[in-house]
């Protein structure tokens, strides 16, 4: 199979880790000590693709607060990340887009995974809404070109749940492998509508218009987060989790369209 290389951070991460350790050794410990212990070295965060923009910003912020800390992210589908962690990937923190994938690695968590934010489905249409889509019931129209996520991934499971709530039989033309692939079909103008997350609509910019629908609130996606028991850098992991949970992190998530659970 091709496409989707799972990680692109290996070599550089190791190099940077070495460099950071040298920096730490050189600087001593005066500026990096916190209540949680020393925060420095390399922090490896595995996070759901939808968190890309917010977490990258928070990572930069944490690096600024702790000279000598290097935050490395792997963003991918939650199920892919859960599989990699199960196979021994050296992650410190795991943030999943739904509780089902967090349950997969529950035995490997250092603490009880807790929900830190949420997301809701939204209808995405190409700019100008060429298909004249008005709401969820349009997904039952066989004449429209429609994309949803495959039921095997979190956004597809959520889509099936809202269709069941509303009582319509959806007529999608394609079940995409992840939410960004569904969004791409909208951006290319190849479908009239796709069911994606509200945050994806916001991240897509002017190519895509969002149509919120009230039933989305009945099936919110909850995002849990945990430090892993085998974390190579637990002190930095705790610092990152604290940043995400506290006011600043929560504000950044709200700004990006996430919902407080």
């Amino acid at each position, binding site marked *: *199979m*091709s*496409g989707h290389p799972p990680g692109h951070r290996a070599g550089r991460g190791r190099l940077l880790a070495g460099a950071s350790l040298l920096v730490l050794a050189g600087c001593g410990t005066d500026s990096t000590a916190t209540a949680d212990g020393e925060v420095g070295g390399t922090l490896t965060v595995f996070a759901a693709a939808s968190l890309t923009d917010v977490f990258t910003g928070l990572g930069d912020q944490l690096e600024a607060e702790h000279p000598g800390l290097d935050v490395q992210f792997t963003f991918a*589908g939650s*199920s*892919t990340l859960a*599989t990699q962690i199960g196979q021994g990937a050296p992650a410190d923190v795991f943030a999943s887009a739904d509780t089902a994938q967090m349950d997969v690695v529950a035995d490997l968590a250092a603490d009880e995974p807790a929900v830190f934010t949420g997301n809701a489905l939204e209808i995405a249409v190409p700019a100008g809404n060429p298909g004249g889509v008005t709401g969820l019931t349009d997904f039952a129209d066989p004449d429209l*070109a429609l*994309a949803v996520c*495959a039921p*095997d*991934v979190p956004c597809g499971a959520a889509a099936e749940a809202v269709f069941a709530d509303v009582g319509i039989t959806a007529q*999608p*033309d*394609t*079940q*995409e*492998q992840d939410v960004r*692939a569904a969004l791409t*079909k909208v951006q*290319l*103008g*190849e479908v009239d509508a796709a069911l994606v997350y509200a945050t994806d609509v916001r991240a897509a910019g002017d190519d895509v218009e969002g149509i919120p629908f009230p039933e989305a609130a009945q099936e919110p996606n909850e995002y849990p987060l945990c430090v892993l028991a085998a974390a190579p850098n637990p002190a930095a992991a705790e610092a990152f989790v604290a940043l995400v949970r506290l006011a600043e992190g929560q504000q950044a998530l709200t700004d990006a369209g996430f919902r407080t659970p």
Partner: protein
Amino acid sequence: MPVPLLVPALLAVGFLVLPLVGLVVRAPWPEIGAQLARPGVGEALRLSLVSATLATLLSLLLGVPLAWVLARSQVRGRSLLRALVTVPLVLPPVVGGVALFLVLGRQGIVGRWLFEATGFSLPFTTAAVVVAETFVAMPFLVISVEGALRAADARFEDAAATLGADRWTTFRRVTLPLVAPGVAAGAVLCWARALGEFGATITFAGNFPGTTQTMPLAVYLTLQRDPEAAIVLSLVLLAVSLATLLLLRGRWLGRGAVG
């Protein structure tokens, strides 16, 4: 056997075969029957075999003449042409899928016109699966056939021409029989590549059970939810393709045509 050849050869066999052994060892054998009986498995397998075969036929129809042009004609810029038509070999298939959208999608250069005139849109149809597989797999056939044409003795063609055959007759009656093993080998390579195609297919044709979900797509999506079931699906695809290739080799291709 000389050791400098034997040792690397054994390493190569281990490298290529051990992952396969891993799949066989890790497969959930007690529940394999239940996994195979699940709805959609037969459908995905049938769709894979049909679309890969259609893609191979389409590649033969278009690719053999192209190989002839590359090997035999005196067209200027043949080297550039050869480089261009083998681009799909190096292009990441996902990019190939997006490129197909830009030409054949309903907003594409050609597809837009087709959509406006007829209301037909190619993406998300079984035809789109065949198109995506042909795009990725045809270069394998072209390269094989071109190689066979270059290796073939051109004096037979010259003799046919001397005896009064025109170029089309020469191609049909002399050249094609001469390179038949090369064409067969290329077709098998093309079929195998089409059968395993993932990136261009899931991008351009999408994924819908019964219409566009081939086995590689079914394997990838099942892997998200149930890795053991995905292993079973992979083994089915492997078994069917191996059986087909062995059967073909025995029946039609003769010895030495296919590796």
